[in-house]
């Protein structure tokens, strides 16, 4: 299977573009942008629409809609005078269940819901009715957990990607959200609608500028600031960008287009398209840690500890024994790097040169393999993410260099080993370009039959001190 995300969209949550676009020129332009997004999604050949909606808050983890054909008539709690929204959706219940299971595998609390009359939220209804009016593309909807932090939201996306890749789907990710979300607190004439304040408008335009440059991860890392600046507290935080960025491998070089940006009773409503094609722009300005498994405070009811034990991947139980790296003349060892699988140090210094032992993606402490192992306990090949593995290798290299007093910009030469050159070279090369490639070391890439642990990539590095 070789599923992937073929596009991403940000869409507003209020019902005006659906119910009364003719009442305001801006609402009409938003409707036209929805229509353009609808056509682009169809042309992309997508076979799955994934909605992350800020108007579906949840408390007990995340909830995923799993009723194959939910039907109801929705009326907005505020804008009930604009009309009713009758809906009947085509939900991919099988995908929903698989996503729920993938969440659990990554340590997340989540559950599916499949109840007649379940109140599908206004953001999801507006998005699905306008982006997928004929229900030709199966959809899945996930809630926005009110207590979820960035790591939980990121892992939610990675679990979703696990299923997309494992099932070979061509998916489109949609966040139903406002930009600034401060509405006028009084009733206004539709013709008088505008963004609530100049400050909200300026922030919205800055966020849109970033997204138009494809800098999704930068926006995700600014989410807390954006929330403080232009969001009404406690309504919904700006967390959908965490999810959307993780769905896009935390990239900053997407191809972005703002299809429309208008006011919706004072709130900022935008239809934004983010294409996975690299724009070649968008250097990262921020550098938050990535996370693969959620280990947050979940056992409140049991009172038995602060974290869930995440079962280590199969590689740790069936792979080669781990060694304490030996000390010796010039040896450099780091607690922040994975333990070696033999009696050798992480690196050795000779003069002003540092020779690193082969570095793989295994995580220090847990021995987990970001992107997943390449085979199961029985040796059967399984799906894995070469880009996630390659990023983890680079991060391990950085930790060892830091321990030695060196840094990434002092790397002189790299020899890379791939176990499947045909499958993995492109992904590995993409991550290289985003990371090590910036520093300009020489490089040699070799195909080999196997590595000692179930990993797909390893690098041998020589750097200056």
């Amino acid at each position, binding site marked *: 299977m070789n599923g992937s995300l073929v596009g991403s969209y940000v869409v507003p949550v209020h019902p005006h573009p659906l119910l009364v676009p003719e009442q305001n020129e801006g609402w009409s332009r938003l409707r036209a942008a929805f229509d353009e997004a609808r056509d682009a999604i169809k042309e992309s050949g997508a076979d799955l629409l994934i909605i992350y909606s800020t108007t579906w808050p949840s*408390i007990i983890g995340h909830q995923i809609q799993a009723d194959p054909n939910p039907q109801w*008539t929705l009326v907005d709690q505020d804008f009930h005078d604009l009309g009713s929204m009758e809906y009947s959706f085509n939900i991919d219940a099988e995908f929903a269940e698989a996503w729920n299971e993938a969440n659990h595998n990554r340590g997340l609390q989540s559950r599916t819901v499949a109840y*007649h009359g379940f109140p599908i939220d206004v953001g999801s209804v507006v998005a699905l009715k306008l982006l997928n009016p004929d229900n030709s593309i199966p959809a899945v909807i996930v809630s926005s957990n009110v207590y979820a932090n960035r790591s939980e939201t990121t892992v939610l996306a990675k679990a979703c990607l696990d299923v997309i890749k494992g099932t070979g789907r061509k998916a489109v990710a949609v966040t139903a959200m406002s930009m600034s979300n*401060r509405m*006028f607190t009084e009733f206004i004439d539709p013709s008088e609608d505008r963004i609530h304040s100049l400050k909200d408008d300026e922030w919205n335009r800055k966020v849109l500028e970033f997204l138009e440059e494809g800098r999704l991860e930068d926006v995700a890392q600014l989410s807390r600031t954006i929330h403080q600046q232009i969001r*009404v507290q406690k309504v919904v935080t700006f967390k959908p960008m965490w999810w959307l960025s993780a769905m896009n491998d935390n990239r900053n070089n997407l191809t972005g287009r703002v299809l429309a940006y208008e006011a919706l009773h004072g709130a900022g409503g935008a239809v934004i398209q983010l294409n996975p094609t690299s724009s070649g722009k968008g250097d990262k300005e921020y550098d938050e840690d990535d996370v693969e498994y959620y280990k947050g405070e979940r056992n*409140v009811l049991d009172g038995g500890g602060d974290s869930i034990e995440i079962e280590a991947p199969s590689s740790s139980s069936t792979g080669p024994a781990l060694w304490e790296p030996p000390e010796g003349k010039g040896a450099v060892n780091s607690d922040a790097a994975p333990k070696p699988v033999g009696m050798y140090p992480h690196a050795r210094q000779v003069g002003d040169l540092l020779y690193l032992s082969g570095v793989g993606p295994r995580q220090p402490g847990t021995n987990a393999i970001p992107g997943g192992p390449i085979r199961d306990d029985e040796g059967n090949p399984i799906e894995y993410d070469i880009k996630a593995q390659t990023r983890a290798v680079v991060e391990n290299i950085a930790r060892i260099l830091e321990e030695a007093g060196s840094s990434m910009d002092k790397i002189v030469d790299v020899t890379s080993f791939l176990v499947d050159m045909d499958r993995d070279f492109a992904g590995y090369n993409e991550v290289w370009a985003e990371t090590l490639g910036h520093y300009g070391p020489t490089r040699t890439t070799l195909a080999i039959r196997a590595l000692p642990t179930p990993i797909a990539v390893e690098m041998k590095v020589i750097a200056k001190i």
Partner: protein
Amino acid sequence: MAKGSIVAGCLAPHPPHLVYAENPPQNEPTSEGGWEQLRWGYERLRESLSKIDHDVLVLLSPHWQTYVGTHFLGIPHFEGLSVDPVFPNLFRYSYDMNIDVELSKAIHDKAKDSGLAVKMMENPDFRVDYGTITTGHMVNPAFDKPLVVISSNRSTHYYSVEVMQEMMMELGRVTREAIEESGKKAVILASNSLSHRHFTTESEVPEDMSKEHIASHAMHLWDMRIIDYMRTGQAQRILDEMPEFTEQAIAESDGGGLTWLLSTLSVPDYPAILHGYGTIIGTGNAIVEWPCHANKGDAQ
């Protein structure tokens, strides 16, 4: 026409767990009970209200959240299925209720005259929120008295607790005036809990009471402090400390219901009756009655 009056004011929280635990015929999921301390509290409240002649229940629900003004249900009859979006495993309830549109409109009009942004909700497809239904059921499971249902304006989060209180004090005042002018006897219901920090996990058996407790000691202290003010007739101190309480206890008083209730009762200085206190997935819930019919005749 005789002057109307408020005959009782109640803090009547709405966790759907309480309906689930009762296994009423209107609710589809079934349970083995649970949360008895609170359900016994509601029994005592029902018993108390059964002895007080009243025509209408006037309720403010924090789960009908409106950002643009305060809204009122404006159609005489609502029925349908309510599924809790957060706890759909517990609450799938077939409701059937009548609305006192005349009184709703009277409060609406007075609120409008006093400068509040208000709107009548007249879309027949509208689904009544589960907070209204849960409190309505726990207070009057037969739903044989009409309701006035008022939305929760989210001014706390748009502005501050102080602004919310100013608006809710005014809404409470005009609610009281409208009731008095209507000639009706009304019970006021604020459908909110106290401290409101949830657990983020649920027991495999949701009604497993061995797992139920307050989310933290700080939440317990705040709940007891507020309840003590209620029991000793110090409603003004509740209003004075509302900003700190709402912030530090993440209290559901953010929805304005408690302030509105105390305002309708003219900020009572007589003791309230605590019918019950308990926790639900970590949140603090108190069932409290201000028996204003027995104090000063009514709330003046």
